[in-house]
């Protein structure tokens, strides 16, 4: 096992990694920017080293400064957290070449899964469902009908030269497809001078479904079931939950197993997340693989009892996964709420400044991952997430009630946070009845 791990990150995830290392008996070195001087998480590290000024490009993204800090502090491994350099295969390579274990996948596995084409090819081999679509335009209607039949209705007909919704037609059967292509070609020819159209799988109501997986250096890979992250605004996840509500158990098992198989074939050691869209019929289409620990990992920890961060460190140090797939069971329901320093009433304007009130919820099933305390000043340099509230309960309904209670207890001031938004969403029937999709938050928030 490692003796000293350098943490190339900040805030709550730095604190999360410090806590994991502490329990494994590992010393920690935190690098920090001068904007983070005095950050509460630094007190919890064995050592901390300032590596540059506030802007990330001059500190948290400066590979040579991080490596220099690892050298002078005699670290033997580097944990990238999420964001910053965590999915930078070059950084992973430099760490390895400089004699520091990168806590994450090998640069090769990271590059393989980071490349859309290669990743899709491997996914096909592994049986991981991928997003079907034509690889180019089509001119022949019969060919389009054949492809649509293969990928399944509904499909969308898009003009190759198009944009802005013009030349687009959604087709739910062959008849409407033939009509749609005819209309789309005419419209496209008139509008763009190019009658070429193509056909893609169309998801009318998709949910974001992602599978937590973890592999080791001995050829093992296990999934920790999935998370539903459909509550998004501008592709930023707001509420995550595990497991995804209302999913057919057999379909769940199959797609989760396929995600584990994918990272096994990639010789992937560490935690990763396979992101899918799920349509209303519970078909899955892989979007991408995130080759790092995810912000929302704690809800998977809650329902499986597996410490994902500690396990990631163990496998990086060469240990085999300490559990098998058959040991993993879903226990209850968990939700995570990202406490962002943003004002929902003013178009989510980021908030920075002194935290004067920070009164946090507690009791059974309440976990808080945050580096904030009264007197902390939220810097302007980094993202607005100042904490994560994780709520675990025996079932989804209790989890929602518990979450409403906890959010009601959570007082932050004077800066505004996303807490009031979550209190609203948790009372929204689309969400409580799990009829939500990835667009429901934006629809709710749009003035209209």
């Amino acid at each position, binding site marked *: 096992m490692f003796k000293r791990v350098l943490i190339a990150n900040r805030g709550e995830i730095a604190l999360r990694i410090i806590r994991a290392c502490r329990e494994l008996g590992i010393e920690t070195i935190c*690098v*920090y920017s*001068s*904007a*983070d*001087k*005095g*950050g*509460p998480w*630094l*007190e919890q*590290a064995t*050592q*901390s*080293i*300032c*590596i*540059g*000024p*506030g802007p990330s490009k001059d*500190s948290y993204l400066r*590979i*040579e*400064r991080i*490596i*220099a*800090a690892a*050298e*002078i*502090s005699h670290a033997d491994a580097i944990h990238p957290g999420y964001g910053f350099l965590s999915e930078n295969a*070059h950084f992973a*390579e*430099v760490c390895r*070449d*400089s*004699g520091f274990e990168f806590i994450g996948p090998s640069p090769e596995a990271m590059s393989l899964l980071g490349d859309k084409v290669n990743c899709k090819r491997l996914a096909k081999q592994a049986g991981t469902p991928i997003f079907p679509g034509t690889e180019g335009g089509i001119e022949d209607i019969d060919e389009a009908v054949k492809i649509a039949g293969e990928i399944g209705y509904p499909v969308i007909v898009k003009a190759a030269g198009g944009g802005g919704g013009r030349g687009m037609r959604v087709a739910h059967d062959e008849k409407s497809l033939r009509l749609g292509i005819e209309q789309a070609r005419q419209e496209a020819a008139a509008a763009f001078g190019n009658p070429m159209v193509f056909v893609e799988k169309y998801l009318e109501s998709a949910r974001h479904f992602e599978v937590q997986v973890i592999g080791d250096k001995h050829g093992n890979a296990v999934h920790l079931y999935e998370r539903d992250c459909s509550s998004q605004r501008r592709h930023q996840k707001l509420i995550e939950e595990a497991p995804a509500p209302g999913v057919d158990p057999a379909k769940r098992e199959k797609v989760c197993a396929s995600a584990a198989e994918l990272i096994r074939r990639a010789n992937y050691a560490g935690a990763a997340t396979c992101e899918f869209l799920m349509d209303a019929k519970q078909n899955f289409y892989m979007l991408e693989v995130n080759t790092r620990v995810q912000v929302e990992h704690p809800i998977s920890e809650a329902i499986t009892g597996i410490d994902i961060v500690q396990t990631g460190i163990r496998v990086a140090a060469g240990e085999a996964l300490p559990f098998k797939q058959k040991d993993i069971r879903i226990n209850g329901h968990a939700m995570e709420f990202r406490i962002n320093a943003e004002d929902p009433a003013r178009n989510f304007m980021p908030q920075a400044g*002194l935290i004067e009130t920070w009164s946090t919820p507690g009791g059974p099933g309440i976990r808080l991952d945050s580096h904030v305390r009264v*007197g*902390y*000043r939220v*810097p*302007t340099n980094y993202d607005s997430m100042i904490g994560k509230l994780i709520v675990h309960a025996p079932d989804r309904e209790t989890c929602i009630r518990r979450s409403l209670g906890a959010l009601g207890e959570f007082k932050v001031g004077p800066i505004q946070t996303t807490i009031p938004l979550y209190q609203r969403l948790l009372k929204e029937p689309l969400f409580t009845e799990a009829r939500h999709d990835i667009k429901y938050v934006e629809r709710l928030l749009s003035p209209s």
Partner: protein
Amino acid sequence: MVENDLTELDLRDKDEQATVRRNNSFAPPQVFHQTISTPTGQSQSSTASSAGKSESKGESKGSNDETGLIAIESPMVGTFYTASGPDKPALVSVGANVDSDTVVCLLEAMKIFNEIKAECSGTVVKVLVKNGQAVEFGQKLFMIRPA
């Protein structure tokens, strides 16, 4: 790429400016990457309110912020060397006069030695860091009384 692939000339074995290069892709081969140091009080836009025990242990306790003195701060993370070689005299000592271009020390990181210039004119009043000591970004290295 392994560490031993480095083409390296240890400065401490040479008399004059040496070419130190590393065959890697993330830092271009360079000759004494030189960085400008900035005066005290302007370099760190620290906004944190509580200064806990998060200070690096390498930070000097003895730096008196006497009015009128200028600090030369470390522009990088690395190891501090007072001389260009083990058998060489210190580049500057207390009492030495420096100007903007005077090389006051070397900072080594990832086998690359970086010359640090004074970037101000005056007299060295204090050397705050010991030879071979690790320094972090923004750490005060020298106190200068401006000319």
